[in-house]
């Protein structure tokens, strides 16, 4: 299953890309995606937190990813 993942802030700098295409196994969860990305980009694992948004909402770890989902990496926010 091909999925595109957007990245913002420090996550965008670590990936060196605003968007990444990933091939995920069918039935992959948010937690599995996070593990895969931290495995590939260890600096993501050093962040205070790394939430994953699916279709512009914070997604729980057990959320199943579907092809066509809008997936985004959300490092610690700091608006204001």
């Amino acid at each position, binding site marked *: 299953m091909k999925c595109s993942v957007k990245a*913002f*802030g420090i996550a965008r700098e670590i990936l060196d890309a605003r968007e990444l295409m990933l091939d995920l196994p069918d039935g992959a969860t948010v937690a599995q995606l996070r593990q895969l990305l931290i495995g590939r980009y260890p600096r993501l694992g050093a*962040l205070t937190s790394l939430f994953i*948004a699916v279709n512009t909402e914070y997604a729980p770890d057990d959320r199943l990813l579907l092809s066509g989902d809008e997936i985004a990496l*959300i490092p*610690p926010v*700091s*608006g*204001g």
Partner: protein
Amino acid sequence: MIKITEKPIDIQKVIDATASLGAGAIDVFIGTVRNTAHGKNVVWLEYEAYEAMAVAEIRKIMAETSQRWPILGSAVCHRVGTLKPGEVSVVIAVSAPHRKEAFEACEYMVSRLKEKVPIWKKEIFEDGEEWISAHPSTSNTYN
């Protein structure tokens, strides 16, 4: 009103968006860029947003706020891009029948915005740069 913009914020427009004849108070929070952090001079800040999600999260915060206080209107405008010290980064306005609710609701909205809304800022110093709150090892956990 919910707006993410690269242009300077028109503060009066944000206030006007909350106007209501039933309001006895409008509380306004104006966030500005500070010129120092950890004793170092900040040259500028870079803000970026995941705009679609930021708008959705702000909408949720507005709904939560109206459930907790009898507010009449609320508006949020957040700037992105390059901001220099002294510039306005965010304006939040809340109208309510009485000042107490307006103060409390506005403070709640600011706090929730800082916790939940996908907007990021990077401080650019004379000798380096740092994404705020990104790492637990840095002393900079406030923002």
